[in-house]
């Protein structure tokens, strides 16, 4: 009886989604960073070998993420059906952009011809944006559908790509310009702003209590390890502190690792379903209707009772 009661309660209140596991999360984790890395490889203008390394890394990340998804879907041998709904599905659009990414990125890797490198960068950005829109189109998950999830996903993707590029550039001190460091600091600051904006918006607009608890629980760790410490390391480099290559590498790695931590949290741990709601309790016999109910939610904004 206890188990039965628990199952029924689970269906009424928001519950953690279990359909997209670590494999699906890997696509967002690696793909966003890879797309952004392609963009920055085009923007920064590194030497040919470093550009090749960045492009290869970006393509491997995107390809790895998509391969993980392929292992997750129920009918992998029908995967080409994914191209059938370009009109409205961001998953189809992501798949189309992925083709362009690999075509342009492959050409750019082989030739390091600047127009191709730039095209690969643009396609990388489009891939990152498509992934952000896939999440936000899912109305069943309140933490994803919030309009501020798109800028947050794009911001963390950009920061991760720049973090990867800083790691690549740190291998050769001649590649590290003040602009790369300043740009990375700006992207770190931007991600912090979008994170706080997202968290504030979600709290104000309402989300399942369990999801808010998960996201609130990572807030301080994410801010400190993903923003404060890497930014301090980069400022120290700008101030002329010795060991700059190591500091830049560690800072870049921290930005990437915390971004991946954020995305894993968003897609797995904080992804609670909407749950059900009773807007009006039924009026039976001579009695009056009871209270409205939205189990698992404290904030009732947008709920027409």
């Amino acid at each position, binding site marked *: 009886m206890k188990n039965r009661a628990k199952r029924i309660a689970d269906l009424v209140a928001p519950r953690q989604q279990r359909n997209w596991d670590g494999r699906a999360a890997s696509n967002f984790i690696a793909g966003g960073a890879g797309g952004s890395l392609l963009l920055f490889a085009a923007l920064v203008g590194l030497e040919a070998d470093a550009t090749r390394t960045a492009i290869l890394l970006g393509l491997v990340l995107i390809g790895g993420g998509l391969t993980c998804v392929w292992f997750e879907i129920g009918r992998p041998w029908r995967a080409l059906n994914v191209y059938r709904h370009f009109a409205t599905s961001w998953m189809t659009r992501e798949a189309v952009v992925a083709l362009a990414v690999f075509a342009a990125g492959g050409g750019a890797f082989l030739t390091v011809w600047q127009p191709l490198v730039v095209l690969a960068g643009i396609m990388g950005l489009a891939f990152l944006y498509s992934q952000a829109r896939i999440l936000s189109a*899912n*109305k*069943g998950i309140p933490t994803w559908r919030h309009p501020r999830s798109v800028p947050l996903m794009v911001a963390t993707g950009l920061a991760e790509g720049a973090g990867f590029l800083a790691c690549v550039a740190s291998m050769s001190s001649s590649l590290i310009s003040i602009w790369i460091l300043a740009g990375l600091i700006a992207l770190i600051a931007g991600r912090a702003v979008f994170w706080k904006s997202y968290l504030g918006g979600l709290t104000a607009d309402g989300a399942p209590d369990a999801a808010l608890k998960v996201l609130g629980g990572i807030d301080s760790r994410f801010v400190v390890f993903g923003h404060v410490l890497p930014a301090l390391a980069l400022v120290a480099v700008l101030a002329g502190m010795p060991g700059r290559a190591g500091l830049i590498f560690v800072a870049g790695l921290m930005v990437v690792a915390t971004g991946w931590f954020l995305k894993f949290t968003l897609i797995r741990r904080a992804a609670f379903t909407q749950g059900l709601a009773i807007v009006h309790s039924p009026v039976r016999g001579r009695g009056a209707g009871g209270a409205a109910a939205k189990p698992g939610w404290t904030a009732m904004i947008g709920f027409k009772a």
Partner: protein
Amino acid sequence: MTRYVMSIDLRRCVGCQTCTAACKGANATPPGVQWRRVLDVETGEFPDVQRIFLPGACMHCATPPCEEVCPTRATTQRADGVVNINYHLCIGCANCVMACPFDARTIVHKTHFSYGDQPLPSESIRFDPERVAVSMKCNFCKDRIDEAAATGLTPGIHPEVTPACVNSCISGAMEFGDLDDPESNVSRLLRETQHYRMHEELGTEPGVYYIWNQS
């Protein structure tokens, strides 16, 4: 035009789960999967509490988010408003499961039967391998509805062309019909009662109306 919808009178539902059983019988859903279910909800605080039975399933939204996100066009909306899945096209990506605010969709990745790996005789007759590892949900018993065109019967009036859950409801809580027909059971009921649709703020325009009081 035709827009098939369902009304559920929360005042009448007694939580007997007959609709759940009828749905399972009509659609041969796998163990643990309920396209139609009745949730048992308690509201209020002691001593002022109320127990409500809330039947739920696919809401056949007018603007279905599942159809929008589906990358394969496996999920489509018919001209009569029924949201349907083509199991031959679905790749089981679960994007539609995430898009549905009503928790109406299920994917069963492995075949299993009531008593383990081997089907009962009844299960082996009705087992559909095309429904494994793809998204599935209530389809308003569309095969029955489609028979209406051939037989001249009216869904919501004649049991032969009415969803199994509606036919089975012992308290008459569920009604089915064409919202665009002002004389249909559903249209008449909705004129005479106060009702709501779940999660209307999300803009999906659900096709299931919950009646909670008379006008």
